[in-house]
């Protein structure tokens, strides 16, 4: 039975996988891919889980695939970076049950620490095929086909949806789910699945890595053949000698831009890697130049140049190597401006809109009102100021402590880098107290390795664990410290004090709603030689509120305007959105509509003006 539903691209991808008979889905939360895992939940016989990290998810899915079961690891681009080592082995061994890697990219870094193009990693580096969808509907179809093709070619297939596909909503046709899924079975095949530098007698003693590399290279011809016939690449006819090429979302935006063009230009829509060589050659016949629109790097552009060089085709190839802006997300304006530049004869008519004659303040994100991180961050801010400390930061809700007004963390890179980076600062001999601030989901992702390293090498770094017992930033996914699985089954949460004990690290558990206690613990940690751990432990306020649980007793917070002298400490060192300064009166105000009564600001104020 077919049914039409209005759902997010991520749900369309999940549905495609379920209709293809996926049996194991594992991922680590990351915008814009998170909802794909969530949406797979609830189908009998399909195991869906949040893994500690993307590498664990990918390896787990590969194990399932080797038992002839279809599996899908789900991650955002940073996760794909993290699994590169494994990817560079599984590409050589190949797989058994269909294995489709979802690697979601976030052009423009809308919800990311960086922007990047994982097509390069998966296709150029690992020589694996990639589908680049132009819409939620196409993403669904691609996932289904990728499972079949993965089995046919014995290779991992990758779907690379961008944010505007993942978080678009569209009308999606839901088809029936398969009734019977094939049973798992395993047969050893050590020549494939033991990746080791061992001589292969069959190949005159050549070592296995080289032979497996040869195997992967030989697969490329089959992939080429498949993509030449793929329904995700097509040519649309048009007038003139200038052609447009749209890859994935680039195609969609060109179609949107067409309404403003005086004529239809020849258009090549691309959705696959490897590229369809024959179709490319056919498209450029009679053209002088082509302009390629792709997210984000000039990757297809580079392949065009190489292929046309090999094929001795003379055509000018332009794209994101500079002709189209080389950073950020594509948009209709950018496409129209580029077309005007590439084809000055084509009339571009986009309705002009007047400028807006008013200053629009920028809105940066911060922690929620009532968030427990604000307490420990304030205690840390005070301590850092007093002792000239440095703070290495990490990924998670606490990262907003690095923005104005707090400006506390001095570094933020990727998952788990806080503790090793802080360790390095200590080892460099800065002679100042060094802190590393990390959340619990990030600790279990891989941050624990840095902690263990600090313990093992006796590095005098002070690690603060913001233990809110959930992956809050991406929407409250459970992790090994939560005590419950994605499917809602109870498990044993990791006991951090015991973990610290086993590593020989001194630890102090504090309540982040008690700033004084936090400060004392931080000072004690500084005075101690060797690594120390502060466990700032309190469930996420937002999640607890939604669950009807209290993490503090809310009370009415009052300001005594007589005592407030406008010193700004409660704003600069605390940054609660409910507190603002009145410049004329040189006094702060607390907005009762925003305040949730956590009363942390009472402890922050040095003049006793807040009670």
């Amino acid at each position, binding site marked *: 039975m077919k049914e039409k539903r209005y759902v997010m691209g991520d749900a369309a991808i999940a549905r495609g996988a379920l209709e293809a008979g996926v049996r194991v889905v594992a991922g680590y939360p990351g*915008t814009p891919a998170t909802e794909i895992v969530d949406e797979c939940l609830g189908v009998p016989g399909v195991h869906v889980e949040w893994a500690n990290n993307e590498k664990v998810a990918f390896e787990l899915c590969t194990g399932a695939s080797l038992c002839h079961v279809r599996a899908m690891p789900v991650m955002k681009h940073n996760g794909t970076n993290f699994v590169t080592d494994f990817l560079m082995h599984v590409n050589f061994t190949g797989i058994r049950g269909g294995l489709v890697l979802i690697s979601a990219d976030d052009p423009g870094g809308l919800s990311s620490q960086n922007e990047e193009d994982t097509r390069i990693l998966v296709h150029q580096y690992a020589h694996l095929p990639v589908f680049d969808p132009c819409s939620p509907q196409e993403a669904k179809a691609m996932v289904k086909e990728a499972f079949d093709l993965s089995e046919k070619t014995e290779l991992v297939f990758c779907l690379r949806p961008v944010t505007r596909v993942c978080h678009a909503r569209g009308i999606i046709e839901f088809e029936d789910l398969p009734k019977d899924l094939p049973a798992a079975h395993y047969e050893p095949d050590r020549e494939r699945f033991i990746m080791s530098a061992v001589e292969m007698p069959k190949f005159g003693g050549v070592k296995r890595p080289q032979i497996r590399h040869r195997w992967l290279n030989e697969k490329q011809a089959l992939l080429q053949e498949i993509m030449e016939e793929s329904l995700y690449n097509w040519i649309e006819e048009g007038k003139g000698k200038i052609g447009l090429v749209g890859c994935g979302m680039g195609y969609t935006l060109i179609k949107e831009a067409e309404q403003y063009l005086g004529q239809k230009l020849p258009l090549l829509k691309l959705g696959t890697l490897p590229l369809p060589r024959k179709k490319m050659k056919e498209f450029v016949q009679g053209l002088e130049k082509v302009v390629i629109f792709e997210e984000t790097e000039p990757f297809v552009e580079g392949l065009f140049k190489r292929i046309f060089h090999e094929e001795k085709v003379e055509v000018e190839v332009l794209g994101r190597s500079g002709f189209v802006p080389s950073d950020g997300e594509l948009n209709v304006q950018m496409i129209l401006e580029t077309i005007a530049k590439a084809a000055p004869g084509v009339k571009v008519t986009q309705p002009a809109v007047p400028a807006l004659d008013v200053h*629009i303040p920028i809105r940066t994100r911060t922690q929620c009102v009532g968030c427990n991180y604000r307490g420990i961050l304030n205690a840390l801010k005070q301590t850092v100021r007093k002792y000239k400390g440095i703070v290495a930061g990490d990924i998670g809700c606490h990262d907003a402590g690095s923005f104005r007004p707090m400006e506390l963390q001095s570094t933020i890179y990727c998952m788990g880098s806080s503790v090793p980076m802080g360790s390095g600062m200590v080892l460099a001999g800065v002679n100042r107290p060094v802190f590393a601030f990390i959340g619990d989901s990030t600790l279990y992702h891989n941050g624990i390795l840095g902690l263990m390293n600090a313990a093992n090498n006796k590095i005098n770094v002070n690690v603060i664990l913001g233990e809110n017992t959930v992956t809050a930033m991406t929407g409250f996914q459970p992790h090994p410290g939560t005590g419950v699985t994605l499917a809602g089954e109870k498990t044993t949460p990791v006991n951090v004090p015991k973990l610290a004990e086993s590593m020989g690290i001194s630890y102090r558990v504090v309540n982040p709603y008690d700033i004084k206690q936090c400060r004392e613990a931080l000072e004690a940690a500084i005075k101690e030689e060797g690594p120390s751990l502060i466990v700032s432990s309190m469930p996420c306020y937002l999640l607890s509120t939604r669950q009807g649980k209290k993490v503090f007793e809310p009370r009415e917070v009052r300001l005594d305007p007589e005592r407030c002298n406008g010193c700004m400490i409660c704003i600069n060192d605390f940054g609660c959105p409910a507190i603002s300064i009145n410049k004329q009166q040189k006094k702060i105000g607390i907005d009762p509509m925003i305040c949730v009564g956590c009363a942390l600001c009472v402890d922050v104020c040095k003049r006793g003006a807040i009670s």
Partner: protein
Amino acid sequence: MKMDVVITGVGGQGNIFASLVISQYAMNKKLNVLGAETIGAAQRGGSVVSHIRISDGTIFSPLISRGQADLLLGMEYVEMLRHMRLLNPEGTYLLNAMRIPTVLNNMGLDEYPTTEEILQAAKKYCPNGHVIEASALARKLGNIQMTNVVMLGALVKIMPFFDYDEVKWLVQANSPTRFQEANVKGYEEGYELIRNN
């Protein structure tokens, strides 16, 4: 026919609920619908925008381009201004009289424009606008979170595209059971709010 709608606000104001109701309404009318949302990091008090594209023809991009929106729903002053240029100056806007200062405003390092400046700029850009006290009404009804349903009620009043009873049913159907009654009330009073304007 086409109807491009932009909903702007601050994380937590209920953009997505409003966007789902509008999208489902269009879907029930057998029209094509395509939407886009900024979510994720934007949940934490950041700027949030939803695009909803409705048409009886093919829709390509989930994002509305400059000057194309027929309707702009502003749940907060500066968030509406931030996306105002997506609106066709001949279109319509519906603005909630609500200011949520930014972190830098709170610090006194950036100015939040005055209400007069905001309303003037909006009017100069697009003459056809309605400014309503949706959050104040929601608060009076017991929960500021109902701002979105109040806005939906007002929206139905000003846009003949929407049918009062059908949207009301969708507001109810999309609300958690314990909020159904209150949300429907908010919707009804939001509809009346425009008549009283």
